[in-house]
């Protein structure tokens, strides 16, 4: 157990180091640099700015400086917004993304899991076909299509919900649905197939033969076991929701971290791109680790270290 934990944390650190190194190199060998204007700056001004952001140092020194700061949790200053650090931006924007993502995860679980269970119980009957049809569509529809269609009908045509911005509960509904679309569909399929698998197991027959009430057989014996792949999916789910928010937050003008990330790509605000990427990676790696550790609690047969990752 301890051995496994140490190994996992070492991998996680290795992955992080790779991310930081690759991102750092990408951002620093881009020709031009962040302060290139159409009109060339006077040499002295340029030198001053570069000294201010330590860009005049040799690359390896900049790299180790960055690592050192990162170890202390400091992601550096933004190049675009003077006087603001990447940490400030994340602290301001991430809570918004988190609320939106949280609502989306809850929607995905509340609809996906029951739909999958229903489809498995009625395999090859009408409810199964309906669930599978919608889940295939949900996988094939990119978030921006769901988002814009919702916006057109619910906001413009029928005027039921505000079209954009952030702050009131009504404004959460549409972006959350757009964000939850693909994960809901995936969870429904995952639940259905693992539920079918569990239902065909011998211990299900045993439970029925013992004369247990049907609801107990269903919930305690079938669903509890069938839910395990869904828990495994929670790690990748966070990744889907996070990257999905790049698009959805842009469409609905939600002032979250995803929207800012896209803006910083337009602005070539390299430290922000680098910082937010590193932040997302830490977040995901920690989330995946927690999911892995929670795993044996659900199924005592599972030994840590033997799991294949689903991404």
């Amino acid at each position, binding site marked *: 157990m301890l051995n496994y934990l140490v190994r996992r944390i070492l991998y996680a650190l290795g992955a992080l180091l*790779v991310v930081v190194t690759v991102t750092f190199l990408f951002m620093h060998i881009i020709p031009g640099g962040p302060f290139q204007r159409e009109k060339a700056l006077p040499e002295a001004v340029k030198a001053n700015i570069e000294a201010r952001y330590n860009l005049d140092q040799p690359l390896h020194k900049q790299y180790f400086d960055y690592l050192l700061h990162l170890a202390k949790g400091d992601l550096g200053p933004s190049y675009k917004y003077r006087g603001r650090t990447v940490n400030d931006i994340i602290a301001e924007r991430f809570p918004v993304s988190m609320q939106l993502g949280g609502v989306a995860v809850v929607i995905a679980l509340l609809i996906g899991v029951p739909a999958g269970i229903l489809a498995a119980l009625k395999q090859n009957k009408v409810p199964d076909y309906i669930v599978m049809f919608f889940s295939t*569509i949900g996988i094939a529809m990119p978030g921006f299509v769901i988002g814009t269609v919702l916006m057109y009908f619910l906001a413009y045509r029928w005027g039921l919900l505000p079209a954009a911005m952030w702050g009131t509960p009504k404004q959460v509904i549409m972006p959350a649905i757009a964000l939850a679309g693909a994960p809901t569909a995936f969870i429904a399929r995952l639940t259905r197939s693992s539920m079918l698998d569990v239902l065909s197991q011998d211990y299900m027959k045993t439970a029925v033969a013992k004369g247990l009430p049907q609801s107990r057989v269903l919930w305690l014996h079938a669903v509890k076991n069938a839910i395990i792949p869904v828990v495994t999916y929670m790690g990748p789910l966070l*990744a889907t929701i*996070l990257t999905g928010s790049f698009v959805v937050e842009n469409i609905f003008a939600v002032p979250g971290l995803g929207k800012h990330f896209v803006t910083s790509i337009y602005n*070539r605000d390299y430290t922000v791109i680098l910082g937010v990427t590193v932040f997302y990676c830490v977040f995901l790696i920690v989330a995946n680790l927690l999911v892995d550790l929670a795993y044996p609690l659900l199924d005592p047969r599972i030994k840590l270290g033997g799991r294949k990752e689903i991404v």
Partner: protein
Amino acid sequence: MQLSPELFKPLEQKVEQKELIRPSTTYWQDAWRRLKQNPAAMISLGVIILIILLAIFGPMLSPYTYSEQDFSRRNQGPSAEHWFGTDGLGRDLFTRVLYGARISLSIGFVAALVTIFGVLYGGISGFVGGWLDNVMMRFVDIMYSIPFLLWVILLMVYLKEILPQDAGLISMYLALGLVYWLPMARIVRGQILSLKEQEFVMAAHTIGASKRRILLRHLIPNCMGPIIVTATLTIPQAIFTEAFLSFIGLGVSAPKASWGTLASDALVSLKSHPHLLFFPSAAICITLLAFNFLGDGLRDALDPKMRK
């Protein structure tokens, strides 16, 4: 009761022996037979072939070009002249959607192509084993712990800067190519690990087949099923990623159009001209649906466990 002698004559043997033996079917004939019984997969196959033909020949047959502007006909709805209407600069949307199909399909094709590298990578890793397997797979693990989209976005930001303005598409190919072999490498390695312990591999070893031959001729052909399924499902993922990146402004640049940029451009005039969004979105959805259904169908058809 009278019994006539005719009743005791032996019956003529109607069934000939040779008809009892059916010609044996190969794995691929068997898979094709099963695929044909799956209507969703067959319809999808037809749709994909249609889209490919339209993407190749459509722009040649259309009287308009993707960049031709006609300011007297801006933002028109669908009509006989402009089947999908025109956009804000008077360009024919049908032609632009067809042109977008070329880009999306070529992206999917490139992604499917790089999975070949994944096959070799996973094959070598699984077959050689030992420390090499360990090193190669730890590399994949590390790449895996970062979401694909973040990788691709990072690569795109970088590649778009170092390549000339027009090179959005090339950097897209490169970015997708650098990451889309990973899942294939994992899947093939897993297959090879279980296959290489089997008797036919030992037989090949004993008659002195080279390692290279065993890997390429004996092991990889035996995991063709999962390889084809993974490749088919990689295509919609790549098309999706391209649409996503183009939508957030990292994809191909104007006047070229992919489905993602078309949808993204339509967003500003969503209220007044929803048709501009509808057609590219529908094209994305139909294509993704078709590839997903075909992939699912292939998975069922190629799985030996489904064999009756």
